[in-house]
């Protein structure tokens, strides 16, 4: 039965989850905007962060929120190495070759996770896990709300950096037109390297937040990759605001589909939405993205 409260509940939970998706998508969109590389391993890199949080918790008893700070640097280095070793050599080879390359990376990460951690669900028990806030009959999960806030904070800092700093201007110039940026004295390769590394480092934030209330399995990586792709296409490739809004939208759509449809078919709705957007708004729902 569709009741008002249930609807509000789905929208609230969806928005909160969507905020976290938004950050995943934002970092993917940033990398695409500046490098024109669609990273199919983005979700797998997120999964690396999630397993990292699990390991840190098991070894050091570190709370997932603290692991965000600890993981950011190794994730940055991972992104750096991936760019230098794998992305840079195929930058001229076309978007589909790069997609194949990142698919290969995805396979490697997923299999390595399976070999190291096995196929079991891993989670982190925190005192937060079940904490909820009840407002007028609507249940708000506290870790989800914190995740939403962290995601909003990181996105805010990121957009300030892009709009308000010289480095940000170099990044935006490179995204607009790499050749022109190069002529204006921007070290394009260095900018791209940093942006890719940063896009991976941002995932540490998401990973820490996710691990307070969910679990990780080796197959999660591909799911998050596909989800991030979906959001980025919805928002418009390279459109950061669009990616953020797309994240919220997918979060809500997922929650509504999960709440009101036959649960097995539910996810199909999102892909139908995705397909229709691709077809009729190839520049994204807001029409500001790049031609895919």
């Amino acid at each position, binding site marked *: 039965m569709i009741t008002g409260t249930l609807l509000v509940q789905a929208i609230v939970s969806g928005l909160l989850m969507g905020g976290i998706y938004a950050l995943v998508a934002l970092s993917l969109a940033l990398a695409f905007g500046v490098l024109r590389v*669609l990273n199919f391993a983005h979700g797998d890199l997120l999964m690396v962060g999630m397993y990292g949080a699990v390991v840190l918790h098991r070894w050091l008893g570190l709370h997932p929120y603290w692991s965000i700070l600890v993981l950011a640097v190794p994730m940055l280095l991972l992104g750096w190495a991936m760019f230098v070793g*794998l992305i840079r*050599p*195929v930058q001229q*080879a076309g*978007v*589909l*070759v790069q*997609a*194949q*390359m990142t*698919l*290969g*990376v*995805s*396979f*490697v*990460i*997923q*299999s*390595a*996770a*399976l*070999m*190291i951690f*096995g*196929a079991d669900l891993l989670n982190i028990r925190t005192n937060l896990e079940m904490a909820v806030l009840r407002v007028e009959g609507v249940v708000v999960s506290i870790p989800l709300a914190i995740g939403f806030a962290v995601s909003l904070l990181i996105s805010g800092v990121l957009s300030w950096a892009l709009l308000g700093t010289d480095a940000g201007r170099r990044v935006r110039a490179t995204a607009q037109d790499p050749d022109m940026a190069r002529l204006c004295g921007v070290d394009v390769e260095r900018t791209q390297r940093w942006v890719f590394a940063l896009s991976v480092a941002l995932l540490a934030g998401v990973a820490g937040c996710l691990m307070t209330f969910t679990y990780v399995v*080796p197959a999660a990586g*591909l799911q998050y990759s*596909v989800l991030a*792709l*979906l959001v980025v*296409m919805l928002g418009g490739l390279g459109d950061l605001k669009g990616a953020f809004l797309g994240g919220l939208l997918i979060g809500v759509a997922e929650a509504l589909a999960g709440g009101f449809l*036959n649960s*097995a*078919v*539910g*996810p*199909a709705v999102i*892909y*139908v939405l*995705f*397909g229709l957007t*691709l*077809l009729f708004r*190839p520049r994204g729902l807001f029409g500001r993205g790049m*031609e*895919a």
Partner: protein
Amino acid sequence: MKGYSIRQAIVAGVLIWAAVFLVPELLGIHWGNVLILTLLWAYLCVAWNLTGGMLGQISFGHAAFFGIGAYASTALLIRFGLSPWLGMLAGGAVAVLAAFLVGYIPFRLRLTHLVFALFTMAFDFVLLYLVGGLPFLGDVNGLYLPVGTDPWMFQFADRSYYLYTIAALLTLALFLTVALSRTATGQFWRAIRENEEAAAAVGINLFRMKQAGLAVSAFLTALGGTFYAQYVAFIDPHSVFGLDIAIKLILFTVVGGIGTLLGPVVGAVVLVPLGEVLRTELTGGPGFAGISGLVYGIALIGVILAAPHGLVGSFTGRGRKATVPAEEGESSPGSAAPEKPSVPSGGTLLEVAGLDKRFGGVHAVKDVSFTVEAGEIFGIIGPNGAGKTTVFTMLSGFRQPNNGHIRFLGRPIEGLEPHQVCRAGIARTFQITQTFPGFTVLETVTTAAWASHDRHAADALARRLLQETGLWPRRHILCANLTLAEQRRLEIARALATQPRMLLLDEVMAGLTLTEIQEVVAYVAGLRERGLTVVMIEHVVRVVMNLCQRVLVLDAGEVIALGTPETVSRNPKVIEAYLGRKLAGSSSAPAPAPSV
């Protein structure tokens, strides 16, 4: 014109059947089963390669067609007792319909390769979840197939018959690929892969060709799905619609060599048994469960970095090198191809009225009208950004005008697609040359001729045009290796191969040396003698003055002058557009032809 090598297909077929009879004998049942899976993957990769390799449309969603084949035949078997052999064909038919559905909008709207790839992936996901919600298809729990020993029901007591079946499918798929590559359709698929714009410009119907390619590939993939369902006797949404299936198809094919005949087979034959060895032989504990995926991923990354053409491609250069045939004597210029009856000079061939084009805020072409008479050489000049090339793109159907009419031979052609405009008799060259980089010179011109002629006439025509343009000695060179001057001549030859009545030349002299320009001028003058009408955009003003009967001058999207070269060159507006107001005003010289 050569397609894939039939010899390679025969050798591969012999090896496959040798393995079919030897492997289970020598290595036992386990390896017999591994061989079945290997051949199934090889078969699916060959099918995928028809779109991904030959047509250049990378699908991330072929699991959809695989799943359709598996589910359609299984549902028909379980609900209606239909033999899976017939169900196989039914599944293939459904897959073809699905292919038309999936391809329709991306191909119709000419969306990019990435959109197509992601869209096929979304389609696969929709089926994955949708089937999981349909009780009559067993929802997420899947369907068990009845077991028995009735060959008509695709049930074999002797498991080796499964092996024979998949080996037969693979052999057929290989020979079908060779056969297709030798038809005009196969050649057009390759042309589309190499360069869509150029393919459309020579009259190839991109939409229909892509639809056909995806449909054939989907049909074959669905047959593989039926085989899988019958062999494993159990299907559920994830085992047949899973994204990992689609990804493995890409992975095996890329590792083996995308776009080559045997690459898909080699990729599967190397990686599937390797994964199996790693999985079974090395398994000390559960820790090795993921090792095959790890190795697959590393293989893919390694091949992309070290051997971008794949295992097969790297051995044979570009995978399918143009073979240089034994020297054929320099026979006399072919005369087999009859020219289309030329329109007597004097009649109006092309009428352009009120042509208008905006790009966002830029009004690129404003209310341009002119006519071109049959048999004339008509020049379009103007400063950079005047809208000349935009007019050409509208004449040739590559862009649609916002307003205005274009009539060719009295028939409206605005709104037609590039290949339709080409077939109506207008051929174009490109300002920035658009070659088929992996085609030889001869293949390029022959393909263009095939689009509108039967084979025999086409071959003779291609030969004649290459001799005329001086490219005949270079006919076996890949287009990517031609000099700019040669590429421009090739563009002209390719356009002429469609036997147009009107030829649109977009700055064919740009970047050429003086001698090269003189050669092209003489050739274009010769075309007119043969009754061809030429419209040319040109920056080399002396050429325009010498060659053209009439000249249209555009500036900032508007017509500022139209007339003979002499009158146009004396027109104050033209002088102003070229030299600027101040100079033009102060210049009292009677006729400063705007040549530089």
